[in-house]
């Protein structure tokens, strides 16, 4: 009885899971706007993604259960499990710290973009005659005071300290741009202070220069961050190990494909000859030596890939997609899920 109730509940939730995206696709835009879903689509999609993102910990829990128990019980190959867990935790720790450091730098630079936004907001509110906000002069005074303080705070950053030798020139160009924008922003602030009648120009000027300062400062701070210990550790794990190991793993496949083709590929029929011919043309057309064979090889290669290959692959894809569509419906209506929803036998 209980099992039956669970089955029904699982089927109901499976169906409900697909309702939103189905109707979001089949209903016209006007109908979605009428029920207020059109404006909320990003948030609703993010809700679904957030639900999916919660599963990200499953992998870690599984690794911990499998490899953690192997280490604790000192089972066979426990040392490899220890290495795996070491890699897992060190990457998590270093990537988190690197992210936090990046966030801190972004926060330092975003002060300037926030003030730029404030300048635009003052103009917008004044033009729209918005009520419930301070008078224009008072808001402008707040803007100029905060902007002046922010410009002074730039001083400790405008140097090439902690910048790598090879990045010195680049950092100097950022510093120059920041200094120029700082000077320009200063003169606009002076204009704003003495402004008798409202004019958009100095507000736009402050907005533009502060936005430039923000983007250039962020670039400069990220150059300086390159020398921080966390960044170096992250580069070591990411570039030195993750990228290198990934590339090596995938390139290993080149050897196996070649070896497997050598062992199993025999031109015994017209079909296999066609396949081999196409493969050889595509491979030869991609290497610099093609000129020694025929200068038309790259063209022939491109034609093979764009015409017969693309058409045949598309036909296969269309067939597979129709089958996928049928499967998707069967999954959505829980027709396909008998084995999934029935209770495990004791």
């Amino acid at each position, binding site marked *: 009885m209980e099992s039956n109730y669970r089955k029904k*509940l*699982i089927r109901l939730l499976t169906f409900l*899971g*697909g*309702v939103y995206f189905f109707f979001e*696709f089949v209903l016209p835009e006007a109908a979605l706007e009428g029920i207020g879903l059109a404006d909320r689509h990003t*948030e609703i999609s993010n809700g679904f*993604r957030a639900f999916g993102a*919660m*599963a990200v910990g*499953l992998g870690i829990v599984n690794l911990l259960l499998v490899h953690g128990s192997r280490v604790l019980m000192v089972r066979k190959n426990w040392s490899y499990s220890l290495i*795996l867990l070491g*890699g*897992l935790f060190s*990457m998590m720790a270093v*990537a988190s710290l690197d*992210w936090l450091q990046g966030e801190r730098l972004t926060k330092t630079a975003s002060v300037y973009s926030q003030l730029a*936004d*404030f300048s635009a*907001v003052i103009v917008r509110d004044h033009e729209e005659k918005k009520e419930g*906000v301070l008078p224009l002069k008072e808001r402008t005074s*707040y803007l100029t*005071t*905060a902007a002046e303080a922010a410009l002074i705070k730039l001083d400790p950053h405008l140097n090439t300290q902690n910048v790598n030798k090879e990045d010195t020139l680049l950092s100097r160009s950022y510093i120059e741009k920041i200094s120029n924008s700082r000077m320009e922003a200063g003169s606009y602030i002076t204009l704003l202070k003495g402004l008798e009648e409202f004019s958009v120009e100095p507000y736009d000027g402050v907005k533009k220069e502060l936005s430039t300062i923000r983007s250039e400062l962020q670039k400069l701070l990220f150059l300086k961050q390159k020398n921080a210990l966390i960044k*170096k550790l992250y*580069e070591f794990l*990411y570039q030195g*190990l*993750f*990228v290198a*190991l*990934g*590339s*090596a*793993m995938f390139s*290993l*496949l*080149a*050897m196996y*494909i070649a070896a497997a*083709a050598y062992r199993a590929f025999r031109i015994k029929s017209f*079909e296999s000859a066609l396949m*081999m011919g196409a*493969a*050889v043309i*595509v491979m030869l057309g*991609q290497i610099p030596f093609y000129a020694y064979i025929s200068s038309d090889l790259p063209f022939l290669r491109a034609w*093979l*890939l764009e*015409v*017969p290959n693309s*058409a045949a*692959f598309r*036909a*296969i894809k*269309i067939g597979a997609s129709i089958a*996928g569509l049928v499967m*998707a419906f069967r*999954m*959505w209506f829980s027709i396909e899920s008998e084995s999934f929803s029935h209770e495990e036998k004791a």
Partner: protein
Amino acid sequence: MISFTSLTILAGGIATLAIYSFLIKENPFYRFFEHLFIGIAAGFIPIYTIKGFLWPQVLEPMLGLDIVTYPDGTLSKEYSTSYLLFLMPMFFGLFYYAIYFKKIAWIAKLAIGFALGYSGALTFKGFFAEMLPQLESSFKPLVVLGETQAVDWGQSASNVIFVLTLLSVMYYFFFTFKRSGTGSEAVATSGRLLMMVCFGAFFGSTVMARMALLVERMQFLLTDWAGTLGQIFL
């Protein structure tokens, strides 16, 4: 004193050689780096998910951390309590973890079912949004006119071959009724032959893609890695 950059290059070279050592036979050197790779990759993905999606798209707006207080005390935008609704899917997402507790393991099936349901609906949406335009664009004009209104024979021939390949390959997989007659057999056979060309081209480009990675690794070993080794030891 070895710099961090040199250390990174050295580690990259050793890791590459360790993976290639598998070509001789499976050995502890390979297994060490294989496990390290799995660990690092598994550690990178959750932080990437949080950094790229959960924090900026869900947690920041939900906690109101994306709202800026301007110098005059006004706010860049009003806090919307509707963001708190994100707690519902996040809580529901925790149902996945019920799989680790035998008594309530069935609850995980609710979350898995829900995920299957919405991925099913997304497949439906994806089919009509992506496949139908592709299908429409596949039927190219069989006679192409050039700029001078003269027939572009090369392009026309390519388009004819494209459409014939598409139709004959689709026909080859059409099993609803039994093929009879030499005409239908000939279409199906040409479909099979053209598929062989497709597989050959696909095989060739896959090999070349892997080869490009191999060449990049070899370049790295022979220039960056050997250069760094030379700087340290010579």
